[in-house]
Structure formats: structure tokens, C-alpha cells
């Protein structure tokens, strides 16, 4: 297998995730797009780990998975608080700190 086929797939998924983060207004959907981006990065880490025949890429992918799980937990807690206070998770309405 070519290294590039994994890298290009990962780049495509990353770009789709970027589109999701920018185009979505619902906070839960934005968090899902961020998960997509983190998974694209994980594919890269494991692919490069395989390429240099090292196990380090897999270890870093495991760290990314852990941090992503923590991020989803905190992110959804914040969204829950936002919903409780404003009855909506529409991120374009959360503009309290807009200058």
C-alpha cells in the first residue's frame, strides 16, 4: 500500500471536517465535525508510524483519542449549560462577548 493513499484520504476528511465546523450553526454538529478532524489526524499518525516501522505513531494516536474524549465531555457540558441558559444551541446566537 502507498503511504499517500492514507494521507490523501486523511486530508479529504480533514477538509470535510473544516467545512462542517465553519458551515454548521448547531453546537453538537460542530463538535461532531471536530471529531472528524481529530480522526483524520489519527489516520496520519498511524500511517506515519507504519511507514517508519515505529510504534510511536500508534501511541500518539491513543493520546489523541484520550484528549478527544475529554474534549467531547467538556464540550457537551458547555453546550448543556448554553442550552439551559438560552434555550438554544445555535452558536450564532452565542454572541455575548462580541465586540
Amino acid at each position: 500500500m502507498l503511504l499517500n493513499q492514507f494521507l490523501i484520504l486523511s486530508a479529504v476528511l480533514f477538509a470535510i471536517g473544516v467545512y462542517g465546523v465553519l458551515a454548521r450553526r448547531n453546537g453538537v454538529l460542530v463538535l461532531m465535525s471536530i471529531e472528524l478532524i481529530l480522526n483524520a489526524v489519527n489516520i496520519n499518525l498511524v500511517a506515519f508510524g507504519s511507514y517508519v516501522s515505529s510504534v510511536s505513531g500508534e501511541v500518539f494516536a491513543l493520546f489523541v483519542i484520550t484528549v478527544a474524549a475529554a474534549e467531547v465531555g467538556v464540550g457537551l457540558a458547555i453546550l448543556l449549560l448554553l442550552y439551559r441558559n438560552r434555550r438554544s444551541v445555535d452558536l450564532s446566537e452565542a454572541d455575548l462577548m462580541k465586540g
Partner: protein
Amino acid sequence: MSVLGALVAQNVAFGVIAAIMVFAAIRLVTTRNVVHAALFLVVTLGGVAALFLLMGAEFVGITQILVYIGAVVVLFLFGIMLTRTRIGDEEGTDHAHRLPAVLAAALVATVTIYAVVAGFGDAELPADTRTTTAEVADSIFSTYIVPFEAVSVLLLAALIGAIAVARRD
């Protein structure tokens, strides 16, 4: 199976998985139904796990299924249920003007793909990329023991923080 046959099988598997993943990812960021988006996320994350197994990273693949499909997606479904009044097609999931987002995504894709094609032209993965769980464990608990402990504390802090943020007082 001969080496060539295995290589062809690997490439066919990669093509099928990649097509399913890209389709599910595009539907994930375009569907108006939030629950469907969560289910497309399951398909995409399952595809990532399959790619890990294809690359011989068994432990990461299993962890991906356990943590993401087992826990993170359930968390998302709870988030959808707790923050929404209606399940189904919904107005207002997307911004009205999506052209800037399309342009930004296209730019990211173009630059990244150009960079990896220029940088890694036709570099081949080694024929046998399998790694055992024992090797991963040895690496985590020797070379990467400090980051491992740090990430454990981070996870604890994040979970306590999530409870503190979300609880009613």
C-alpha cells in the same frame, strides 16, 4: 495467499472503506437531521477503525471502536436529546452563506494534498506493518510514561470539570 494477492486485497479493501468514509463524512456535515448526523459519525469512525486494522494497528483499532463508537457517540446522542426539543429534520442547522466554508475547505484540501503528493510521491508502506498490543504497551509504559500520566490527569480533570460545569446548583 500470494504477496501480490494480499496487496491487491489490501488495496481493494482500502478503496471500499475510503469510499464509504468519504460518503458518510459528507453526509455528516450536510444532513439537516441531527440524529442522522450522529449515525453517519458512527460509520465514519468505524471506517477509521477499519483503516487502523488494515494498517496492522490492532490495539488502536479496538480502542477506536470501544472509545468512539462505544462512548463518544452515546455521549453525542445524550447531548442531542438534552439540548433539543424535536428529533427530525430541523431548520437552522447550517449558516445561510456556506460559500466561505466551501472555499476554506477546498483551500485546506488543495494545500494538504499538494504537500503530501510533493513530499511523499510514491513512498510504499512496508509489506508487514503489524504491531502487537505488547509492543504498544511496552512503549507507553517505558518511553511515554510521563505523557501517559499527564493524559490520565487531564482526563480526570476534564471529567470533574464537565460535572462541575453541567450540574445544577
